[in-house]
């Protein structure tokens, strides 16, 4: 592995971020008219990506930097806003896009969609439709890794809203009590659905809460992929060395609405404009240019990402639907066939 700050490494991080951005831009476009909510009505023609689609646009640096320090045998739990984590952990983008399209050859055979996307083949144990639910699951997976005596670790992503749910307390306490190899990553986009998290959170919030349970934590600019890369390097090394859980608090900003059809009109336009200037892809681009990389080379990386995603999207459109009998598969083994 190259060291943080290295140009080749920064290019790789940028490419991961560009792939996440391209994936979500494409999924967003394919989702319009797919759900009736937020003052939008469903269109007569069903969208290709149906249902709620939670975009992490603007938060890509967190997924890219943390996952760059994970091995294939490391495990990961994610949130309802989990495309970036899944992609950065190494999932196949065509299988991911097929899942969003609800097709038979999706990562989950079309049974989960965006909110439950998972790829166990790369250690991605699932996005989760319930805020904070992945935290105890991550602790348990880490518990299993520790009992098996491996040096693999678990990365557990959650949002700022999750720190006000009980499983945050229970899961961090568990991980500390048993000294488990978990890197908790609070991807703080500063908004809980459509309500700013700050006024809803007592005290100083995430990091102080973690420290009160003796889980060392570090606060990082979540839009600065270099800073994140350096912090993740330190924390992952400590977790892998058996020092117990750590928490990375990455402060970022969700550029889109709660779901893809939410125009997020409840936000101050000036705040959004400032956030656009702090777009992590623009910052990573500037960092590459400052290190002597040609603008054309950076643009080529972004174009490569878009081409890859366009190809995944074409494959997803042509992919078959799941057969109806799949609705009855993988419920339970005992009792299979007894549906009524």
């Amino acid at each position, binding site marked *: 592995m190259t060291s943080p700050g290295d140009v080749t490494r920064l290019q790789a991080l940028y490419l991961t971020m560009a792939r996440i951005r391209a994936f979500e831009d494409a999924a967003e476009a394919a989702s319009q008219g797919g759900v009736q909510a937020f003052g939008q009505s469903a269109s007569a023609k069903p969208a290709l990506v149906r249902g709620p689609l939670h975009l992490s646009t603007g938060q890509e640096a967190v997924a890219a930097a943390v996952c760059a320090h994970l091995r294939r045998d490391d*495990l990961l*739990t994610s949130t309802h806003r989990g495309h970036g984590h899944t992609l950065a952990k190494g999932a196949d983008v065509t299988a991911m896009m097929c899942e969003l399209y609800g097709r038979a050859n*999706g*990562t*989950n*055979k*079309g*049974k*989960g969609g965006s909110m*439950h996307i*998972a*790829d*166990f*083949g790369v250690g991605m*144990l*699932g996005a*989760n*439709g*319930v805020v904070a*639910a992945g*935290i*105890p*699951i*991550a*602790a*348990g*997976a*880490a*518990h*299993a*890794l520790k*009992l*098996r005596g491996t040096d693999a670790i*678990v990365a557990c992503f959650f949002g700022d809203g999750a720190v006000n749910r*009980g*499983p945050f307390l*229970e*899961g961090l*306490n*568990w991980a500390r*009590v048993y000294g488990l190899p978990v890197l908790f990553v609070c991807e703080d986009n500063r908004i809980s659905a459509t309500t700013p998290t700050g006024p809803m959170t007592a005290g100083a919030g995430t990091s102080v809460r973690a420290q009160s349970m003796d889980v060392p934590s570090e606060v990082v600019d979540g839009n600065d992929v270099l800073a994140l890369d350096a912090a993740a390097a330190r924390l992952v090394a400590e977790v892998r060395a058996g020092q117990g859980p750590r928490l990375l608090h990455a402060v970022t900003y969700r550029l889109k609405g709660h779901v893809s059809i939410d125009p997020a009109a409840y936000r101050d336009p000036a705040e959004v404009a400032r956030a656009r200037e702090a777009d992590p892809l623009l910052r990573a681009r500037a960092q590459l240019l400052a290190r002597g990389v040609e603008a054309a080379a950076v643009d080529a990386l972004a174009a490569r990402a878009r081409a890859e995603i366009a190809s995944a999207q074409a494959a997803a459109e042509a992919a078959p639907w799941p057969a109806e009998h799949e609705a009855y*598969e*993988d*419920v*339970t*083994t*005992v*009792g299979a066939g*007894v549906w009524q």
Partner: protein
Amino acid sequence: MTQVLSYAQAAALALSEAMSADDTIVALGEDLGRGGVFGQYRGLQQVFGPQRVIDTPISEAAIMGAAVGMALAGLKPVVEMRVIDFALCAMDEIVNQAAKNRFMFGGQGRVPLVARMPIGIWGASAAQHSQSLEAWFAHMPGLLVVTPATPQDNHGLLKAALASGDPVVYMEHKELWGQTGEVDPALELPLGRAAVRRAGRDLTIATWSRGVGASLEAAGLLAAEGVEAEVIDLRTLWPWDRETVLQSAGRTGRLLVVHEAVRVGGFGAEIAAVAAEETGVRIGRVGAPRVPVGYAQPLENVSRLQPARIAEAARALLG
């Protein structure tokens, strides 16, 4: 070799045998190192160590959630919820996570966990320690529901639950722990197969858990009047053994469903409805009134299964 064991000892033996044979099995919950609140883990931590018989904080959501994570990462956890009433603090973890993962991940993740949630009235423990919520879990796709009534079954069914590969809500009864009986550890029991505890020609009683003993007592009262009741112990509520129940009910022409749970919306309603659809036999139901379980003995008795009331319901069905 057959031995006489209590319901609690039978479960401890089953778990001990399973843990010896499969080192991916772990147990986790509060006070397990001290044998569990009912003695059903007695001696196990001494044998298997605190890494495999894990004492936990009072954190039901984390106990169940961690067990889901353990299962996804290759272990087979036995989860102790102490009493089912506390499992309500872990409902997201069991219902949204454990029950759904295999399906919603397209078969990638299996959750082979056994969640032990003792049900039923536990003398003078009042409303928050006395519930029978089996219908909630039987309603939920992705879960198996097991309700052993005898020491033999608490041995065989626990082993079957551990071998099932899917999440099992395993409901022992809080007042059966001291019940003793012959246990043959070599006897393998499948999930989903009922046991006929008493044969009879006049009516069929379908029941489970604590209801088995109460129904057998009721059958004794009826026998003294010349009425022969067949008593079927379902043993597993999902999947339940329709064939045995429907065949018996079809033969006797009358089906009485008996459970300690509240009658309204209880799992007995499901059995009664299927029997009505499939056989058209006369149907009766005995269950608790829709009230919280009271503390004082006369109030608790209102919710307890009473053999005399079961016999009365049987007579009404025969009349």
